[in-house]
């Protein structure tokens, strides 16, 4: 495959090169929920991410598995400075996500399940203005946008159509293009291949590998696709109810849970204790600040 036509990635300052790409220490996030209890409103807190410590090395791809609501997107949003943590710290190449958010934003980009675009604007228009937010001038983006979408097998002649005319998978490709256009050093992927056809899925996966190998990008991949996790990631983490209960090579996970496949290991780690789940549901109502 041809090399990825992205610009030279945002350069990581020399002194940062030895640093881990992502380092989280006791990173924690809770959400308040206001509920009507009789006539009064009561505020309850629910833990989305329990104190979590991990590091991701430069150029590594780490996959995060977890059931719905286990905190994957919350982790990604914290690292992309869209949420402020309630405790702990996280650094991206040494830059604190809280106190040095702008430096983090220059290095990071994110692709999430929902494509999120101005639906009446064309793909090109959506990409063009977004690129400028990263300091990429129109003369550059005019050249790079068609190159990148072509690499994603997105028909270049449909770039001028309004987003709402595109299928979900095509919109997802434009979402990927938006991230790749800014040549991120750290790529946060939140279920990037959900809803893609098998071929597109493979293309996206190949692209992620390319980003890593050719551009030295670090990838954090949240996914429900266990094969994808095993294929792409050097280490696989499991988030369970906001807790990172494991983070190691897929082979290690299987060994630890005595499982033949990653799927079995995942079920053993998360699904085995259904009665606990019922307990937790009962607990949640009672929690108060």
């Amino acid at each position, binding site marked *: 495959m041809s090399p990825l036509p992205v610009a030279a990635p945002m350069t990581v300052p020399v002194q940062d090169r030895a640093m881990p790409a992502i380092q989280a220490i006791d990173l924690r996030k809770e*959400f308040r929920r206001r509920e009507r209890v009789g006539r009064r409103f009561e505020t309850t807190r629910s833990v989305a991410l329990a104190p979590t410590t991990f590091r991701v090395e430069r150029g590594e791809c780490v996959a995060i598995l977890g059931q719905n609501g286990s905190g994957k997107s919350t982790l990604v*949003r914290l690292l992309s400075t869209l949420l402020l943590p309630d405790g702990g710290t996280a650094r991206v190449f040494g830059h604190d996500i809280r106190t040095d958010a*702008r430096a983090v934003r220059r290095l990071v980009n994110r692709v999430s399940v929902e494509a999120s675009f*101005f639906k*009446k604007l064309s793909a090109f*228009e959506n990409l*063009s*203005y977004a*690129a400028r937010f990263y*300091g990429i001038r129109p003369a550059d983006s005019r050249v790079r946008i068609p190159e990148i979408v072509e690499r994603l097998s997105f028909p270049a002649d449909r770039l001028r159509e309004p987003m709402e005319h595109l299928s979900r998978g095509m919109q997802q490709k434009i979402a990927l293009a938006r991230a790749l256009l800014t040549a991120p050093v750290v790529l946060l992927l939140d279920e990037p291949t959900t809803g893609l056809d098998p071929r597109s899925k493979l293309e996206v996966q190949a692209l992620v590998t390319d980003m890593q190998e050719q551009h030295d990008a670090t990838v954090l991949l949240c996914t429900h696709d266990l094969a994808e996790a095993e294929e792409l990631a050097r280490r696989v983490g499991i988030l369970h109810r906001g807790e990172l209960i494991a983070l190691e090579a897929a082979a290690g996970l299987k060994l630890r849970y005595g499982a033949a496949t990653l799927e079995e290991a995942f079920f053993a780690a998360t699904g085995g204790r259904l009665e606990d789940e019922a307990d937790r549901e009962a607990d949640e109502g009672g929690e108060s600040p």
Partner: protein
Amino acid sequence: MMMRTELTGLAGVVERNVYLVKRYAWWEVAFFVYTVASSYTIVLIAKGIQTTGGRLDVNRVTTILLIGAVVWAYLSSIFEVLTDTVAWERWEGTIEYTFMAPLARSVHLLGMGVFAIAYGLLRAALLFAVMAFSFRLAMPNANFLGAFAVVAIASVSFIGIGMMTAVLPLISPEKGTQLGFMAQGLLLAVSGVYYDVAVLPAPLRAVARFSPATYTLDGIRSSIIGGTGVGGLWHDLWPLVVIGAVSIPLGLWVFHQGEVHAKRHGKLKRSG
């Protein structure tokens, strides 16, 4: 180098808004026709009073009403654009992508402000042309330079206030936009858009003193009807300069607080 990156970001904000206006061109036409119609009804009031036996200087009152309608159209356009900074982006879901870009919030808001002024001026100028033509108003004394100076300085305050209302949907996604509308309504009531603020009850008159629109309207009327030049408009210009100098930093600060609040409580996006 740094400066150039910021300018590129600012141009990106303007670029996006231009695309939106183009893609929603029919809405623009519809809103403009509505604005023309509602301004027309208001400006016609002077003639209406005359035909029912009232005695008044029709040309003068019509001009007063016309200026009110045009300035209000300008103000509403600015608020509408700035409110969309958050409300529209939340609706489309793009807000997360805008907020995670390495674009300084001040540059982002400045970009919205620059676009808002250009958009507002264009609409107001068109409206003024249509109205002045249909009423064939005589403005023999008009000092347009004075009026322009007032609008230019006033725009700064309008942008600052717009930033404060723009952030409301970040603090309360459900009630924020509604609050913004109410603030806009209050401004309409107290600023003497269609009458002299002297007719207001005392409490409202007190609020009027803090509204930049009060001085804007007074200044524009003096220059268009009375022919006052920039030099003679000082008593309207200095409050505008003060309000402008306070409202921009205050607007940025309020917006920042709203952004922090939203990021703390997960309000940038509706779905978890």
